[in-house]
């Protein structure tokens, strides 16, 4: 059994959210969200549709400034009034796999992966090619570098998106529903890939998902959001959440309609 869920007092977490309130205009989606992610952990963010998972992701990657509260990356605050340059520096340290993979359609897979390397790193141009090959091999897309995104299947696109997210060896990787739209086998492969990368590179991950098998396989910790309370209703290792007496958590993990509905 693992120790307690990490908080800001436990060593140096990679990512820490402190009393985070986020929303669009007057519409508060989440309030007072608190959690930390320790190095090398995989944390999954769960919750039903519309509870604000994607919104939370947008806030964590700096696309949506929080209304209140702070976000820390390795102890440095990255929310609030940071300059554009500081934000750009921060963004080089994080990788994001978007739900739709968000590959640039006019570029080949290799060019997509090379994009951040050429743009944001000091890697000598001669080595970019090898780095790209390495990333593609890591996600098992070796040999597909010259394909265009439209020529790949959904699972391959996601893996290519993953390769691009990993291009600069980020300290933390965010994934928005990596298994959505994939068949069970492909999504299991995706889970396996995330685990492999986590193991071999020690990369910290925050994964948004509502795919139950995937939650059970990859999570060190899970955080469950709920729309009615606009915040976290449970956190802990997934096997513990599964046994939770809370009817909302129970409903989620046992695929039942929510009691209120």
């Amino acid at each position, binding site marked *: 059994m693992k120790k307690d869920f990490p908080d800001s007092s436990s060593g140096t977490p990679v990512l820490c959210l402190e009393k985070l309130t986020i929303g669009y205009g007057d519409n508060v989606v989440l309030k007072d969200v608190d959690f930390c992610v320790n190095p090398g952990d995989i944390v999954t963010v769960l919750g039903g549709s519309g509870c604000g998972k994607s919104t939370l992701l947008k806030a964590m990657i700096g696309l949506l400034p929080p209304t209140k509260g702070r976000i820390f990356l390795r102890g440095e605050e990255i929310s609030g009034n940071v300059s554009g340059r500081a934000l750009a520096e921060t963004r080089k340290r994080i990788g994001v796999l978007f739900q739709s993979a968000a590959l640039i359609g006019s570029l080949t897979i290799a060019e997509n992966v090379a994009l951040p390397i050429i743009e944001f790193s000091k890697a000598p141009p001669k080595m970019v090619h090898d*780095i790209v090959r390495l990333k593609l091999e890591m996600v098992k897309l070796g040999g597909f570098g010259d394909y265009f995104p439209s020529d790949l299947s959904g699972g391959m696109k996601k893996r290519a998106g993953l390769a691009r997210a990993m291009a600069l060896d980020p300290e933390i990787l965010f994934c928005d529903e990596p298994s959505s739209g994939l068949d069970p086998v492909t999504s299991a492969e995706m889970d396996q890939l995330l685990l492999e990368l986590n193991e071999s590179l020690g990369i910290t991950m925050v994964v948004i998902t509502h795919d139950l098998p995937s939650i059970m396989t990859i999570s060190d910790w899970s955080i469950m959001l709920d729309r009615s309370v606009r915040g976290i209703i449970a956190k802990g290792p997934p096997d513990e959440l599964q046994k939770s007496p809370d009817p909302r958590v129970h409903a989620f993990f046992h695929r039942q309609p929510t009691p209120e509905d």
Partner: protein
Amino acid sequence: MEGGLPFEVRRPSAGEYILVFNAPLSYDNAGAVWEGLNHFLREENPSSLVVDLSATPRIDSAGIALLRAIQRICERRRLELRFESIPPSALHFLTLIEKKEPPAPEKPPLTTARLITLLGFLVLHAWDEVVGFYRFCREFIVYSIRDLHHTRRFRWNEMLYYLQLTGANAMSIVFLLSFLLGLVMAFQAAVQLRQFGANIYVADLLSLAITRELAPVFTAIIVAGRSGSAFAAEIGTMKVNEELDALEVMGFNLAEFITMPKVIALMIAGPLLTMWANFSGIMGGIVVGIFTLDLTAYGFMAEIFSVLSMKDIITGLIKSEIFAMLVGLIGCFRGFETGTGADSVGRQTTSAVVSGIFAIIFADAIFTVIFHYLGW
């Protein structure tokens, strides 16, 4: 460090070199290490190399690529290379890219035969487009005729929406451009005609040129830029989002559902806008007449009415009707031709405007010949 190299060089015996990397091999210093190494190889010319990684704190992706680059350069120089205490994960990743790369497909050289082949493909492709466009138009016409009998199938609301979009919303820009066109035309004509005291003939020249030629063509070009491109972009986006597939599977005919409301709206808007452009252009001319030719508005108008016949206006409107149909059909056709991806939408949008304008000019030339022989 020796001579400012970003690594330490040890020489246990002659010709044998050990490079000790103390700094991380990372994105930040891979470039510096690579340069240092090249410098070292140029200076020392070793016969064998040991790269000691036992003191390297961190090797990231750029570090792996660097190790691979070192391997390559040693292969090329036939140096014996050994990595000392390489971390297992780094070794794993290194072997991933040590695998032989598939050779890049060679581009065949550009010979005369190949040039002719390419030309042939180009012609075939153009022919395919023509045939495709013909089929597209045929389907449009077949469904239009069918809908004449089943007027309730026609999407009236949709058509009115596009009429607003392509017609009413274009009025200001059409007015502005035609007014300026009339102004410039009249002014240029005035400069010449004044020399002969033929001031009043500016009205004749302007009204004929505007109604027969300039207003229809000019309006059609504006419509191609505004609406033809918009149709292509809208349909292209629907195609990329698989909306067209969805409609087709639900049993809608795309010519009827998508193309018809747009093209019909444009065919109504085109002549109306042309009339509007006739009016605006002549207004521009009148302004010049009053201010630079000492003509009265009444005199100018009277001259116009004496020279302009219904025939001139009608031929202009016939042209504008055909232009509008061509622009609408080409815009929609290009939209349907969209492949996959956002860039394809952009390409087809551009192509809708370019081929739209081409079709306008081409059709105008044909009209000129036809009207000439008809004596209109």
